[in-house]
């Protein structure tokens, strides 16, 4: 248990250190460009299915299922966002590839996903 905890802590410290270095070297224009592009692609994939689900919410009996589907779609949207974030980051600022982008972005993805799952559980508890 102690060993596992140490491992988690060391991974977190490694992430923080790498993130700090990455933030120092990343240009602000790259940040905006990459965020905008990956967000747009993520939206492109998920917006229409989300709208379809929102439209179907008129069927009150399916409400619980639709809310669940909506949360799953947002979760998928987060995964798509971070996937393209890494791709665009290495494309627009090639010098950043010297850092372990797979680890840094992957760790960020895990944190955001965990926060979202926590939020989703609250939403489901309210609805179902």
């Amino acid at each position: 248990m102690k060993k596992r905890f140490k491992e988690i802590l060391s991974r977190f410290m490694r992430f923080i250190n790498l993130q700090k270095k990455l933030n120092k070297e990343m240009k602000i224009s790259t940040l905006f460009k990459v965020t905008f592009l990956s967000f747009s692609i993520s939206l492109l994939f998920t917006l229409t299915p989300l709208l379809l689900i929102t439209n179907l919410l008129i069927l009150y009996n399916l409400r619980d299922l639709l809310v669940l589907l909506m949360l799953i779609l947002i979760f998928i949207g987060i995964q798509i966002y971070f996937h393209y974030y890494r791709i665009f980051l290495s494309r627009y600022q090639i010098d950043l590839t010297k850092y372990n982008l797979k680890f840094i972005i992957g760790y960020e993805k895990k944190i955001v996903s965990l926060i979202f799952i926590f939020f989703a559980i609250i939403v489901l508890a309210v609805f179902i």
Partner: protein
Amino acid sequence: MKKKNNEILKKTLTILSFAYFYLFIVSVYPTDYSTTLPGDTKATEEIFKIENYNVFSMDTIFVITYSPLTYLQKSIIEFISNDNISKTNDFDKENNNIERYQIGQIQKQNSFNKSAILAYKKANKFIDYSFHGYVNLSNSSNDIKVGDIIRTINDIELVEGIDFQQFQSINIYKIELIRKNKMVTLEYQNQNPDIKLYLDSYYEINSSIPAISLSNELDFIGGPSGGLITALSIYASLKQLVLKYKISGTGVISLNGEVKPVGGLIQKYYTAYSNSDFFMIPSSQLEIFNSVENSKIIPISNFDEAINFLENLK
């Protein structure tokens, strides 16, 4: 071979993107139609609490109204049942979803107050209440907001049951109203004939024995149509009636006990009929059920009739 496959993939994606775009449009573009669909029932024991009394629970019904519908929603509802679609009415056109929600909440609170006053009086219990004026439930005017309680017009105090015809020929109004617990005076010019205020008499309960309170947990339900069943449930609770029947129903109630018509009655009936022994409706809307033969339907014209029905079930 790989190049050919890539070309096929590109063509397929292009065609699919059109379908994707089409779906986007039909799920966003609004139509001129609205719908009322069956919702769910809510037990009155979840709606209010009476101090030291067990609530005699009955079922109120809520239906869900969507306005305006998107093309996709319209197609889905047409596929299920064509009867549920109607052209958007003036009230839905004038008010957006947030305003309709606000209006629904005001109507619910006011209807609950009226129900409680009526039921306490009929059950010979103490209730102290006051008439505050007329609450505005329309957004057609820029000056008078939804929820404003009008106290006087041109220095004439608005008393219960006042005849509003006397104000129709006047073009300039001096109005005193309560907005968010503050007194506001405004000069209001009725230059636009499209402005129609929808006013409802507004009562507040100051104190009652036993104390009664409305639950805030059911904020998503609004409107006055639960009035009849709420009043009957309060009355039955105060009289400590014990009945083995499950009673549900709908109807707007006024302070003199008159039961007024409601919207979406058929949808409300289909929401509740399978789980109830008796379903109360305003008697003025009985003709809607001509095609439905059902001994569960009880037409009610005033609150005394509803009480008699309940007493006879004992």
